[in-house]
């Protein structure tokens, strides 16, 4: 319990430090937000008026405090460029990105766990070598290329799925899924290939462990020893890697959202950068950082559930 509290405190402190870093970075960037908002032809008075309107003339510490307390209440402020509130935009796009990333990770694990286990069991046989080879190829293919190839085959070629766009689930599950499947697949295939290699080596490692021999000495066959005693042990290194890969996946999603024209955080981020909408960029970056840290926290907690040694050491 104490360990949990200490881990949560650590999380809160890290998020706070990240918010300071993100805010500071945006201030260091060249260009004045008010200048941008006022437009190219604005006079110095226009700029000063806008600065006052948005409170940009106040000390930085006050501006930061404002931004932070706003965020704590779920309010990211109003864009200087569009004049629209940022919160709904962030809230809508975060859903798209989270659905994309989490389904991709689940699918990747559904691919990697059985394939990696089979590849480990068949080590030294031809099918095992084929599986290892395939995962090798998968690792080498970038996300966006996988996306384009999938579009060419399943969308342009076979016409099974739409090549781009997004449909929210409330407008029909069928449409939602058919829009989702290609972007998720292009992230998951590559991720699955990477994880397959980790699962394979984790299972190989476990198969050499003394306690699997003990399990067989108790009267289990090799297969049942692996299933009962091996897989949960093998899950520990795989969870570690999957946690690190989630961050990679989030970055991959930014690209894939562009390829498939999805209204996710990646697309919004690119648009905000193009519009020099600094406050929106700041909000999206902060949310992305928060997501990565939160996912790490979840992985850590999962770890303590899986491994009693971590539970006691912490």
């Amino acid at each position, binding site marked *: 319990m*104490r360990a949990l509290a*200490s881990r949560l405190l650590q999380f809160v402190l890290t998020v706070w430090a990240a918010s300071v870093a993100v805010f500071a970075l945006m201030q260091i960037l060249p260009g004045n937000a008010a200048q941008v908002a006022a437009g190219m032809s604005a006079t110095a008075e226009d700029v000063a008026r806008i600065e006052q309107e948005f409170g940009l003339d106040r000390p930085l510490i006050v501006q930061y405090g404002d931004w932070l307390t706003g965020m704590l209440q779920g309010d990211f402020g109003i864009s200087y460029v569009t004049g629209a509130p940022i919160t709904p935009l962030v809230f809508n796009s975060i859903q798209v990105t989270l659905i994309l990333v989490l389904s991709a990770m689940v699918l990747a694990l559904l691919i990697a766990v059985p394939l990696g286990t089979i590849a480990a069991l068949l080590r030294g046989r031809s099918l095992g070598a084929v599986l290892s080879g395939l995962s090798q190829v998968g690792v080498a293919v970038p996300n966006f290329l996988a996306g384009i190839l999938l579009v060419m085959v399943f969308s342009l070629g076979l016409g099974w799925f739409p090549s781009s766009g997004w449909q929210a689930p409330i407008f029909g599950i069928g449409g939602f899924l058919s829009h989702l499947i290609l972007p998720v697949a292009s992230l998951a295939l590559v991720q699955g290939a990477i994880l397959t290699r980790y699962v394979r080596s984790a299972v190989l490692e476990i198969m050499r462990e003394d306690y699997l021999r003990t399990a067989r000495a108790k009267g289990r*066959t090799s297969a049942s020893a692996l299933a009962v*005693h091996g897989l949960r042990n093998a899950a520990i290194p795989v969870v570690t890697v999957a946690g690190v890969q989630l961050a990679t996946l989030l970055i991959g999603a930014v690209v894939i959202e562009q390829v498939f024209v999805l209204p996710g955080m990646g697309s919004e981020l690119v648009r905000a950068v193009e519009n020099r909408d600094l406050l929106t960029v700041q909000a999206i970056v902060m949310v992305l950082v928060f997501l990565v840290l939160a996912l790490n926290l979840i992985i850590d907690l999962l770890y303590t559930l*899986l491994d009693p040694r971590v539970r006691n050491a912490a």
Partner: protein
Amino acid sequence: MTDPLLAVRDLTISSASQTLVHPLNFAIAPGERVGLIGESGSGKSLTSSAVMGLLPSELTAQGEVALAGESGNLLTQSEKSFARLRGSRMSMVFQEPMSALNPLMRVGDQVAEVMRLHRTASGDAASKRAIELLDQVHLPDPSAAAKAYPHQLSGGQRQRIMLAIALANSPDLLICDEPTTALDVTVQSAVLDLIDEQVTARGTGLLFITHDLAVVARVCERVMVMNAGRVVETGTVDEIFTAPQHEYTRGLLAASDLTATDSRGRLFTIATADQYAGADQQATAAEVPVTSEQTHESAPAAAPEPTTASAPEPEPATASGAADLIEMTGVVKTFTRRAGLFRSHRVEALKGIDLSVRAGGRMGIVGESGSGKSTLLSILSGLEVPTAGAVRVGDVVVDPDDQSGLTAMRRDLQIVFQDPYASLDPRMSVAEIIGEPLRSMQVGRDERLGRAEEMVEAVGLDLDALTRFPHQFSGGQRQRISIARALVTRPRILVADEPVSALDVSVRAQVLNLLADLVDDYSLTLVFVSHDLGVVRHLCSDVAVMRSGEIVEQGRTDQVYDEPAHAYTRALVAASPTIHAALSA
């Protein structure tokens, strides 16, 4: 033997490229206790794995293994029907207690599992029975122990759990593969007693595999001696230990006997075993302290004076005042371990050590794991900073911040480490390894090579060893290389940290003899750390017994061993298995 419990006929074990175990025949009667002894690579563990059907998949076993009450040859059975016998009719306890249990499962569940698997108990009954079994293997507070995870238990406790698992279904045959090799002597003794007690209570047949002859003599009735994949000799414990027929058995026996020495005061090796009189004859000779023969300078067996543990009084060999080459005074080492963000706890590794070694002395330091031996050595060699206290080596006061002092000290004091496999850089040639300590002393390349050549010959290796790499050598040869590296700077002090504990018995004798020769030839002062009391008794003139960061007793070796003043020393001496003790019991 009319109706053997286990009959092994023409068992051959081979890998793709070679035969590892040559046709092997033996039988074990119901309730009989058979020891299988041999050195590493002799095939003893493979034999037991084959009987259990646990051979690694890259090895194949041929021949016949028959278990009373089961029809047919076990080796030709399907994996499933073989698995049905494991854990129910025959069980196994392995060497490594640290890794043999599933780290993610409570130990009580791991004991209950073997009963649920064979349907001898189910559900809550199995859990209850598991707690009873933990009680039978004498774990304190068995119901709390059942809820523990393996990492919360010590090595000895885990080995008790393994034994509870193995005995849960009252098997007819128990196979123990080096079950106590990884344990401290006092723990080993308790676990051996437990195996003895449980096997007797259940009338279980026992196949006990070990490299340690004293352990076999204590536990078994009959012994098979294995060498290079063949059983070279079989007989009762008395026959094997008192009248060994085969040359290899004689060699093994002679090399294991740390109380028997040849005319030069050296241990017997397989090569010189023909001069060895045998364990029973030697048993009387052993009562004359052999160590005093080698320590030429030591006074004729000084009348043993009673020592008190609390205040180690000055001993003749250590208290020559000014002549002390090493002096540690009031050395304290406290480790602070962080636990979580705000908590930390302190571990007192050393609680005020006073130790001095005179020039030319041979100081043995014995103690079990966790006693602080290694920390003491780290501080002595300047690798760790003591929390309090001072260390003087020669004229140098050891201070890790004083680089020039350390360099001077290291020229004088060199270390040989325990693990001959991990302590040599695999990418350096032997010449580079041996010459390396000279590099930091700015010795030129030609002289380094010259001195490396000299040392290689001194430790009994061929000159062509210089251009080879560590993986091309056996464990004993690697330890010779480590010794050569340590002596190349011509130090006055040699510190050896368990230098023979990873070696086979026959190699151990050779390396110990080499150390004794070199200590004589180079007039070295020796600090020798070991968990093995026999080795220290043979090699050292003085001994310090450590427990929980304290020296509980120190003095002349024969005196401490023959009349231990401290209760812990007495327990340690009593627990150390010796062939003589086992045979006379």
